[in-house]
């Protein structure tokens, strides 16, 4: 797997589809698919232990995987040009739905933020996670890169609107993910370092303002992060117990189904947001390294696909989706290991639950589409 090379520009005059075999013809990328399946399988093994050996729960998750992989397969069949054409509409619909959630969501005390689709439930904010990078990529791909200052300003506004709408729900975790998806597109579009540094400074300066805007429970999370011992019954308990689970796992782990922290119920939310702690306890540093290596493989493959994409839209979108996947991973592991405050972000493809799974796999479907729909036209 190579990220760079002087020969990237020229394509061999053979049909890439035939060269890549049968999987490519149905628009699947074998290395990426392998990486995803391996992560998911590892996840199910851990879930069996984390759920207290509840096979029913594993089956339900397996069903979700099936559905999510099906959606990925379906999305992979859509041509990137089609995705590009849909981008502004998806963005518009998604943003309008967010407004709708804010306007009418209160009626059901939050219950109406969801659309129930049987096995999984759907939130407009999930759709926006994809629509924002699509929109920004579509907008920037239109004109030469790097974008001019005025276009950059408009792109920033396009990011900020849905981010604020989600933050107001309030769902801080999701709004951070959506913001990062948009910002990654800008970064990959080659904007100069000055606005990037400016943005970072601004973020630093915004921290006190954010503190003022935060709800009590959000402030609580930050305070707990700074001093978990002060709240041993609430969120602080999560972090304390999760660190014990990870630390006591050691290099080799306590063995599958043998983690005392997990099996004896000390670890809260152990099959959802804190499942990484179960893995660390039972499989040790070795297991953790293996999982992180699998994740790294998926991410690097994603970046490779991005760099091989034939048009700007595909490049920007693929790159951004891959990096968001990384943000999930980083925030979750950082939170569970006590590096970051507790934000409700699941461990991608491993945590129990279907919402983020479907979003992520749709994204990977787009990556596969971008990679397998390349033409052999010399540009």
């Amino acid at each position, binding site marked *: 797997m190579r*990220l*760079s090379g002087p020969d*990237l*520009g020229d394509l061999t005059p053979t049909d890439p589809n035939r060269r890549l075999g049968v999987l490519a013809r149905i628009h699947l990328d074998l290395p990426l698919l392998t990486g995803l399946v391996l992560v998911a399988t590892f996840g199910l093994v851990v879930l069996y232990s984390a759920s207290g050996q*509840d096979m*029913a*729960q594993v089956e339900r998750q397996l069903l979700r995987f099936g559905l999510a992989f099906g959606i990925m397969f379906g999305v992979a069949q859509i041509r990137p040009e089609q995705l590009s054409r849909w981008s502004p509409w998806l963005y518009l619909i998604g943003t309008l739905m967010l407004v709708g959630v804010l306007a009418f969501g209160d009626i059901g*005390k*939050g*219950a109406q933020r969801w659309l129930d689709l049987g096995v999984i439930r759907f939130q407009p904010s999930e759709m926006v996670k994809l629509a924002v990078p699509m929109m920004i990529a579509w907008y920037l791909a239109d*004109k*030469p*890169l*790097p974008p001019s200052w005025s276009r950059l300003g408009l792109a920033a506004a396009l990011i900020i609107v849905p981010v604020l709408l989600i933050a107001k729900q309030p769902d801080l975790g999701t709004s951070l993910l959506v913001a990062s998806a948009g910002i*990654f597109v800008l*970064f*990959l*579009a*080659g904007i100069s370092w000055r606005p990037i540094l400016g943005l970072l400074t601004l973020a630093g300066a915004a921290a006190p303002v954010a503190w003022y805007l935060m709800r*009590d*429970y959000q402030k*609580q999370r930050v305070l707990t992060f700074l001093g978990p011992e002060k*709240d*041993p*019954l*609430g*969120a602080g308990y999560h972090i304390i117990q999760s*660190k*014990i*689970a*990870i*630390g*006591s*796992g*050691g*290099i080799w782990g306590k063995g599958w189904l043998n983690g*005392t*922290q997990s099996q*004896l*119920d000390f670890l809260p939310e152990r099959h959802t947001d804190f499942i990484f702690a179960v893995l*660390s306890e039972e499989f040790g*540093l070795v297991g*953790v390294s293996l999982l*992180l290596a699998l*994740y790294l493989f998926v*991410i*690097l493959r994603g*970046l490779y696909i*991005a*760099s091989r994409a034939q048009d*700007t839209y595909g*490049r*920007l979108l693929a790159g951004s989706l891959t990096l968001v996947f*990384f943000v999930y991973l*980083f925030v979750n*592991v950082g939170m569970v*290991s*006590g*590096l970051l405050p507790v934000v409700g972000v699941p461990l991608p493809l491993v945590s129990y639950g279907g919402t983020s799974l479907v979003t992520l796999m749709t994204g990977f479907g787009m990556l596969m589409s971008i990679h397998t729909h390349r033409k052999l036209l010399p*540009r």
Partner: protein
Amino acid sequence: MQIKDHLREEQAFLGRAIIAGLLVILSLGLLLARLAQLQIVEHDHFTTLSKDNRVKLIPLPPTRGLVYDRKGVLLAQNRPAYSLELVPEQVKDIDATLQRLRQYIPISEDDLERFQRLKQRKRRFDSVPIRVNLDLEEAARFAVVRHLFPGVDIKAQLLRHYTSGTAAAHVLGYVGRISKKDLESIDPSNYAGTSHIGKTGLEKSYEALLHGAVGVQQVEVNSVGRIVRVLEETPPLPGQDLHLNLDIDLQKIALEALGDHNGAVVAIDPRTGGVLVLASKPGYDPNLFVEGVSSKAYKALREDRDRPLYDRALRGQYPPGSTVKPFIGLAGLETGTIRYDTSIYCPGYYQLLGHEHKYRDWKKWGHGPVDLDKAITQSCDVYYYKLAHDMGIDAMSGFLAQFGFGQRTGIDLTGESRGILPSREWKRRTKRQPWYPGETVIAGIGQGYFLTTPLQLATATAAIANNGHLMTPHVVAYLEDRQSHARSPIPPNQKTIPIHEQADWDDVRTAMSHVVKGLHGTAKRIRTDFYAIAGKTGTAQVFSVGQEEEYEAENASKKNRDHALFIAYAPIEDPQIAIAVVVENGGHGGSAAAPVARKVMDAYLLPRLYGDAADGLVDRKGGGTSS
């Protein structure tokens, strides 16, 4: 205009992708380093912790404070209750399980509906109640077949119960299951283990004190997680008990006295601001809400035309009508617009100079010559039309504001209405219109834009009774610590209305006494020999009467009949109770509202003034002889 340079863009992207890739590797390296720190460097430390981690923390919810009335009658208590609960995560086919359960325990459609609703709100591994308040027999029947229902179990908990039912529903409010919205305003750790929270009334406004503080039990568990022994316990701090100024017997008497009518009665101790009665009719059963009211029952309550959920005493906004006359009379005296003996002639109507419109008096043929005493005693409208016009809206609303009209009283309950004290500024702010002289005229008899709540009327009446001390009304008299029995009283809070001329106040109070004891007083029928009452009747128009029409109470359909109002305090020489009564569609204040006040005052005052001999007195006088 630049031309897209594909090669250059591709190269630029590649550069950024490489940077991103390197940052990813660097970040993952950082995570790995952190994990290595925990798993290698601090491994021994955490292993020790993990081995010692036989200790689990179990939250101990505090017991909620109780609520007593002023005589010590228990109004809100905690009753042990059994509920049948199910953990969705542990049950394969929930519908089938519920059907099977029905063979043993009756489960109604309402129960099922609530179950589905709560299940939506909770996480899959939380237990969700199916049935609440199982009786012992039902609990025993389930215990026998429990092994057939994995994931279903019986839980014992304390449930709130309101002993007075509908009588004090609005004041006490109720507790309900903690919702997502509630969670945003509380400390979740302190509510770990608590399932209910105050939603309305005192339960809401005193939530923090009633709830108490959560306790923690440290227990040692064995290798399969079963509790071996309790290591250490920080007991929960029970919530404080509320002792109210409210007298539940008096409250019931007030409600009963309202008869078939909707309405509100508020009685206040003018010396302290303590709320003796805060009654709104019709009421509802707050116990319905404790375990989650079914949406059918809730819909019925909401759509009931009589609006039982609505707290008329606190939120109902009624035109004060003539009950505002003592206040406006006092305003006239204190601003120097009139003197007590200033006399005018009342021909039965009033006209502004240069206007055709006739402002009519309730007495068609007029009162003849009227001074302030007669204007209050017989409730002459023309006198007040002129007084209001002469005084002007600015002076009038400025003076009335001192009595708290148009403002929240600051009672220790949430959700009270402000009412409207009409003023030039108010109209410009809300309607963006100038003030018209005719509006001053009708404001003089408490009509037009003027709106007050029964609570405001009672508070203002108390301020007349105690010579200018506007006491902030409060329902709670003191809090009592369950363990130490230490009492923390709520200190009275007051604003003092500046008195320009003491004689003015005395004169208005004298006129109010004539309303009851005078030969032509509008409330003469509630006169009693046992104590002296000062009061004022009022009638609030529900619909307006045309210029040449006449309002005939007898013929108007019940819904269109006027609201009857009455304010009073007693005994005059040492006021112990101030009261405001609103009888919706009751007709005249003197015949419909005043007797209600009399019954409440009898019940409150006679035992205080005459001790044990009071029983005979109430019977003989019948608590107000009028209809």
